[in-house]
């Protein structure tokens, strides 16, 4: 089987680019899957502890990624901290 194809229009504002995911994926499923990945990767108490820290780090994320992650957060149900944690999964695995 091949995965679905999603077109990302780079001419759109970064916040809007990833809304195209909604055409291909079930939004409820996406948000549950994101929660599952975070739960399996980050211990619960660490997750709770880092949420305010991660939110404050948003201002250090350069464009266009800050806008894109904000847009993704809205697709995933509005949780910006979780969207940031997901996008730094590789870099912060040990953390």
């Amino acid at each position, binding site marked *: *089987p091949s995965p679905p194809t999603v*077109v*990302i229009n780079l001419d759109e504002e970064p916040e809007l680019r990833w809304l195209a995911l909604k055409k291909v994926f079930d939004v409820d499923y996406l948000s549950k899957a994101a929660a599952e990945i975070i739960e399996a990767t980050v211990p619960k108490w660490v997750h709770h502890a880092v949420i305010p820290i991660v939110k404050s*780090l948003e201002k250090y994320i350069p464009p266009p990624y800050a806008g894109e992650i904000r847009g993704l957060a809205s697709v995933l149900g509005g949780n910006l901290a979780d969207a940031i944690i997901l996008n*730094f999964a*590789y870099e912060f695995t040990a953390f």
Partner: protein
Amino acid sequence: CTSIVAQDKNGNVFHGRNLDYPHPVLRNLTMNLVFQKNGKAVYYGTSFAGYVGLWTGMSPNKFTISGDQRGTEHWWNWWKNVVSAFLFHRSPVSWLVRETLEEAKDFEDAVTRLSTTPLITGVYYIVGGVRAGEGVVITRDRKGPADIRPLDPLNGGWYRVQTNVDHWLPPPKKLNRRDVVMKKLDAVGQKRICKDKLYQVLSLSLVCLRTTIYTTLMSAATPREYTTILREKG
């Protein structure tokens, strides 16, 4: 992960990769991406819904890139990643792949960017081009390259294989994917190497694992043939 870049006798360059990750839920989040500008595709990639970076991608008629995890750090070094990211404004490894696909003008430019741009943490970048000899494995530290290993077809180096271990170190005895892949590639030979053979190599039982999420096959010279296959239970 396992990445292979190989060149046939006619100078065609092929690039294949298995992406391994121990969360089966990612299979249902995998997608091929077409990044467009002015209605035209500027680069392609494969990623997971919810993730803006790329670990696999192609700039058509220029080059292909895959990234493999490099796990040389001890867990107590996590703070170096945090400092790298936010104090030194270094790039996450998957964002550099996207920027390179979007901005680099050719294979050489891509290799320079992937080798020298400061990163949050280490990684292996595997790059394939469109001309004979254009293939390389870059072993990255945070600050720069730890090692650069290009194809060397005139001296028998018609392929390069990268897993998750530095090539100068012995592979783990329990999971020696590197030797399994090299043995199979040697058996196939440079005359017969093609995308189908590459797929067969990446499907070997010790190479395609239960944790393998997808396999991508690509050749920048023939961008329409960019293919991703979802793996079910390896």
